[in-house]
């Protein structure tokens, strides 16, 4: 039962992460295009640092860093008269009230908390990729379109929202589609973030003996993982087909080769 639930966990993660990281990416792309140098530097730094480093390093790093950051902030707010240093040698100690989540909290809160950390980490990493894609897409919109908008007396803001943003999606879609595929394929890494996802359950249920139970069957992990492989293959295939359909739909009436071809066919 929990095994099937964990599939829902993965799907839920995908469903939440995709829009959140798209928003991160949009913010990053807009920041990189900004005319204010510090904002532009921030946007470019964000994308280039996240891209240059293996994502698994980020997954391992951010979870601890975020956890400690949250606990540190709560520590500053909740126990101002705590005199001992937080870093005692190799230990990271905050006052008990500042633990996030509280050590008295029920198990499900811990799980939800971990899940939220995981989503945030995924969103930061994939937001950087998405920022790169969207940045390219914004630059790909024909300059003439923007100049025409200005000629019609639109302000910068209006040009951005009414002309640039609606047109950039068709240029962004191949990249975003790729990104979606990578996101799907990155979900097993959830396992490393301490979320009980499908990889965790495949190992638990497949093994003949675990910490809690001794199953009557032998080592079935191979078959469980084979099943996961098939699941992911099917998932990516379906996504591929869906993205193809979407591309066709978005190309309709656009000033691109594909759009032109559709116009001629019609």
């Amino acid at each position, binding site marked *: 039962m929990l095994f099937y639930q964990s599939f829902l966990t993965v799907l839920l993660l995908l469903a939440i992460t995709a829009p959140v990281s798209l928003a991160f990416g949009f913010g990053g792309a807009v920041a990189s295009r900004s005319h204010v140098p510090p904002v532009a530097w921030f946007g470019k730094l964000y994308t280039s640092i996240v891209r240059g*480093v*293996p994502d698994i390093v980020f997954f391992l790093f951010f979870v601890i860093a975020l956890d400690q950051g949250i606990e540190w902030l709560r520590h500053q707010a909740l126990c101002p008269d705590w005199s001992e240093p937080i870093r005692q040698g190799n230990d990271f100690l905050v006052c008990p009230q500042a633990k996030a989540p509280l050590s008295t909290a029920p198990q499900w809160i811990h799980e939800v908390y971990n899940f939220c950390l995981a989503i945030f980490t995924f969103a930061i990493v994939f937001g950087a990729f998405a920022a790169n894609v969207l940045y390219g897409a914004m630059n790909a919109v024909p300059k003439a379109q923007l100049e025409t908008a200005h000629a019609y007396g639109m302000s910068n803001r209006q040009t951005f929202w009414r002309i640039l943003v609606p047109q950039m999606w068709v240029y962004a879609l191949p990249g975003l589609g790729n990104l979606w595929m990578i996101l*799907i394929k990155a979900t097993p890494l959830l396992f490393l973030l301490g979320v009980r996802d499908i990889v965790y359950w495949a190992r638990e249920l497949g093994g003949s003996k675990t910490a809690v139970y001794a199953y009557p069957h032998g080592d079935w992990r191979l078959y469980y993982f084979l099943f996961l492989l098939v699941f992911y293959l099917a998932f990516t295939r379906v996504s591929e087909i869906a993205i193809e359909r979407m591309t066709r739909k978005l190309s309709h009436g656009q000033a691109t080769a594909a759009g032109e071809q559709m116009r001629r066919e019609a």
Partner: protein
Amino acid sequence: MICGDTFQAYALRSLGHGERLLPKADITLCDQVVLIGSGLIWNIYFAAIALLAGFFLATALAVAKSRPSRWIRKPAEWFIFVFRGSPLFIQFFLAYLAFVKLPKVGVEFMLFGIEFDAGTHWLTRAWLGATLVLVFNTAAYTGEIFYGALRSVPKGDLEAADAYGLTGWHRFRRVVWPTMLRLAWPAYTNEAIFLFHATTLVYFSGFPARKQMGDALYYASYFADKTFNPFVPYPIVAGFFILGTLVIILTFGLVGKRLNRHLPQINRKRFRFRPQWIR
């Protein structure tokens, strides 16, 4: 302890030489840099072998996929689909579990007077098993890149080759293959970087690090666990990997220059690495 001693003790720790015990308490910055750098040897090893072997396999896959015969095309298409469509992480798990299940057979043989034994148990070790998975994985991705390039080889080049009477192997080796490489090179550079980054997954996915001989990330997470401070080891790993990525870009840039050397100098676009960063 000065840094030189640490270097002597731990520089080759990931290969099993030097000090046996990892530092437990009083971990200095020097310890971290040296040990993580030592782990990087494995990452470079995995990436180098996988790129080298994957390159030839990918060429074969691309050629097979562009063949009209179903019996050659379909297997290549399926191979590429399976390895590109599923997460590398799952592939590692699956491969490891499958390799463990293999019956243990071994042969011993003499080569140059030294006794070797080759057996299936080697497949469960990261140095062979994980490398094999990486080779197949990168071959599938690269195969798809090469296939795309193969289909966009200019028609004029092929007609010229026909006009010169080149056929079969000569036509492929002299005309099709170099052009394919030239067209695919920027995308292939990307793939190489991704592969280099993917090597960090090996020790987190089933393949055990025997006697604590692991890769860069393995040692970094060891330090993060021990010191409970992620802000030192992970940035060190990140720094090493950024350096490695730069080396890859430079090397591939030089090769790309050589591949393009016959083109007219003025028209020739300077080899520019246009990062896409996602594959």
